């Protein structure tokens, strides 16, 4: 389903997606056409942020000028002023600006978020700030997602997995987060746990009765996760692997074999590009018959 320009921009705003280059092109086109009424301001804000992201401060400045006229003394516009300072590399001034906004209102969430963002070049400091923030503003999925990423980048995978656990409580429908938890467990070497997450993700992504079933079948990320976890669990070195999964809940060897056949079938059924390379890797992965 192709969306109109305005719908696409709205969708990206809702998701918080960062397609800055395209946003600048599309938003400028949409604003030039005009006729948006009050809807234009959300688009102007989105355009300003995207323009700063790709270094087009001239474009951003024009949007700020208009917004400053329309919205006097607005904390929302003040955040944009801070972003502009950041884009110019004036980080101390930006920090003062955001701290100032927090003195006016402790619940200015974007100000909290920007202060954390300013610390991202010092991951340990960012983690500390992020933990305080999440203590108060628990249901911020992006906060938990960022925390998981920061921990993973530092190699602290158990902590990363815990953060993803919180994310999954808040966004229980998010199959990509379930797959990500599987990837984190796999990286930690807990293959039983990884397998459970990956299988859950495939279950969430597969609904044979739905009209979109064909589109879903071309998503192979979770199935590759299943395949890789199975390979580790069926290898000769498997006995040495630690797992947090209690023995009675672990996936048993006979089921592993069956799942392996299923995963292989699903990965080939996805069709598409690179099928011959896929076949080569899958057949090399077949564990020796026992």
């Amino acid at each position, binding site marked *: 389903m192709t969306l109109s320009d305005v719908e696409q921009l709205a969708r990206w705003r809702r998701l918080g997606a*960062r397609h*800055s*280059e395209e946003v600048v092109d599309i938003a400028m086109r949409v604003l030039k056409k005009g006729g948006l009424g009050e809807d234009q301001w959300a688009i102007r804000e989105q355009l300003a942020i995207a323009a700063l*992201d*790709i270094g087009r401060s001239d474009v951003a400045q024009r949007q700020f000028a208009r917004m400053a006229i329309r919205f006097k003394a607005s904390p929302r516009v003040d955040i944009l002023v801070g972003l502009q300072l950041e884009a110019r590399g004036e980080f101390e001034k930006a920090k003062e600006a955001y701290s100032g906004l927090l003195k006016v209102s402790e619940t200015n969430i974007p100000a909290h978020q920007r202060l954390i963002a300013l610390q*991202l*070049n010092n991951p340990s400091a960012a983690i500390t700030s992020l933990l305080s923030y999440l203590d108060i503003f628990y249901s911020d999925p992006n906060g938990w997602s960022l925390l998981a*990423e920061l921990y*993973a*980048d530092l*190699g602290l995978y158990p902590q990363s997995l815990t953060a993803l656990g919180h994310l999954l409580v808040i966004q229980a429908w998010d199959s990509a987060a379930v797959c*990500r938890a*599987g*990837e*984190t467990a*796999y*990286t930690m070497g807990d293959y039983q746990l*990884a397998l459970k997450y990956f299988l859950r993700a495939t279950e969430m992504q597969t609904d044979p009765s739905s009209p979109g079933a064909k589109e879903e079948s*071309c*998503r*192979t*990320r979770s199935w*590759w*996760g299943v*395949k*890789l*976890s199975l390979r580790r669990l069926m290898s000769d070195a498997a006995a040495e692997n630690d797992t947090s999964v209690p023995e009675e809940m672990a996936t048993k060897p006979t089921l592993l074999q069956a799942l392996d056949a299923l995963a292989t079938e699903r990965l080939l059924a*996805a*069709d*598409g*590009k*690179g099928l*011959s*390379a*896929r076949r*080569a*890797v899958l057949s*090399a992965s077949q564990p020796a018959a026992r």
Partner: protein
Amino acid sequence: MSSQPTYTYTVSSAAYALPLLHAARYLSHTVIGILLGKIDRGSKRVSVEDALPLIHHYTSLSPMMEVALELGAAAASERGMEVVGLYVVPKDDKNSGLGRVGERILGEMKGKFDASFAWLVDNEKLGEGSVPYTIYTISQSSTSPQALPSKSSSSFPSPFTLDSTPNLPARTLQAIRDEKIHRNLVDFDDHLNDS
């Protein structure tokens, strides 16, 4: 004292440009990919001919990278080539070298091909229009990667030489800025979402 590999490498324009297109496609992410080429073990020459862009999501997590490396090797083999190196374009300028993940991958590659290498993109040099790659190798006497010293901003450090296409750095930037060719790029993470 720098580490000098005994192989010499020639780099095609495709291999030079693709990592930068990958980075341009995913501006706010760290991107990682591999380099493919033909190895002449007799005369100790590597012809670095192509790049395969692999991941831009969760680059600190291992399973998809594992799959990507295996599929990459299989795809290379179909084309009569081998995996000869990797590239990393970090999303920020922390200047902390190749990073944990890059070093790990390079170490594993070295196990399969001794003269494997890694390219790290320096974002500042990229903006200046110079050859933006710092090249890492692991010498015989060491387990950690060392950067090759670079004397010129318009060519690769020895023993790497760049294809003779004139003004390749500038032309690559122009293709990104003006023609936006990076928008058509698809990497392995994209393929996993839609084969």
